[in-house]
């Protein structure tokens, strides 16, 4: 199994998705690729079904908001782990704020179900094909996505504090 390393992993990915991989780097030894969002579900399916790589575990799905990256404001990050090869992979997909949609991978890894709901809850990223995409942690009546960097940190419903003492 020693032949499975980051170089081999990247080679196998580029054979299949060369046009969609925008960049690849290895921060602290963990291969991190930026992938076009249209290929996220096929890429994860490919990595799971690959005879050698066997990425059988989706560690995490999460979101991030970069208000200054024009056209790439929102992103979802996928962490994959191959237990048999003990190798990990991070995939980042960017999308514009105006169109925050990406394919759901919950049909491939059932564990993605709640993680995608949480990402939707906090960042408003819509996972197309998700069986039950609704808020998971916040109150259902909430009308905004609190982890987007569009809002002041403090709760705006607060009435008992004098703003001048809190730098607002």
């Amino acid at each position: 199994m020693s032949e499975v390393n980051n170089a081999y992993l990247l080679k196998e990915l580029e054979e299949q998705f060369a046009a969609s991989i925008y960049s690849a780097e290895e921060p602290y030894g963990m291969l991190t690729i930026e992938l076009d969002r249209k290929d996220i579900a096929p890429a994860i399916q490919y990595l799971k079904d690959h005879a050698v790589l066997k990425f059988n575990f989706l560690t995490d799905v999460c979101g991030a908001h970069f208000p200054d990256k024009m056209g790439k404001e929102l992103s979802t990050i996928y962490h994959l782990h191959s237990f048999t090869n003990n190798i990990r992979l991070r995939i980042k997909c960017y999308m514009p704020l105006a169109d925050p949609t990406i394919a759901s991978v919950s049909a491939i890894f059932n564990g993605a179900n709640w993680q995608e709901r949480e990402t939707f809850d906090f960042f408003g990223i819509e996972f197309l094909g998700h069986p039950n995409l609704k808020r998971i942690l916040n109150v259902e009546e909430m009308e905004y996505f609190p982890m987007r960097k569009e809002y002041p940190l403090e709760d705006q419903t607060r009435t008992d504090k004098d703003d001048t003492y809190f730098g607002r």
Partner: protein
Amino acid sequence: MSTIKITEAPPGLEGSGFFATSLDKAVGLARANSIWPLPFATSCCGIEFMATMASNYDLARFGSERISFSPRQADLLMVMGTISKKMGPVLRQVYLQMAEPRWVIAVGACASSGGIFDSYSVLQGIDKVIPVDVYVPGCPPRPEQIIDGIIKIQELVKNESLNRRESAEYKALMASYGIQ
């Protein structure tokens, strides 16, 4: 000679073989010294409450021997800890299940005002969803402070007029919270 101090009788007329006082005062005296609290403890203030009711501080000295874990049998709702917005309706439901007369004490900064959690997920004080009688400051308050809050509640209970809960003012207060 015992050093145990018992509650003093309310002011009234006393003569040989009789004692007369108003019903308000007699009922208030009985109620104030037998408050059944319902602890609604969500975080560190709840730990301070545990110390308050345990042997060192002994809340039972103030007539609150019996902690009620059913809202239907409780007189005093003690909210101790951070209440998230998602918890708000639950707290309100607990309050609605309590029978009149009922009192509410908000223990600690979070229950009183949201505390340091000035955030999208936290209710900025329980008085956004239910009326509160006494606020205890502190983060968390010491047991002495909680006892002080209970004594303040006792004063309110002792001096409350028997028909306060029927008054227009009280009904307007309830209506402002959308209750009844």
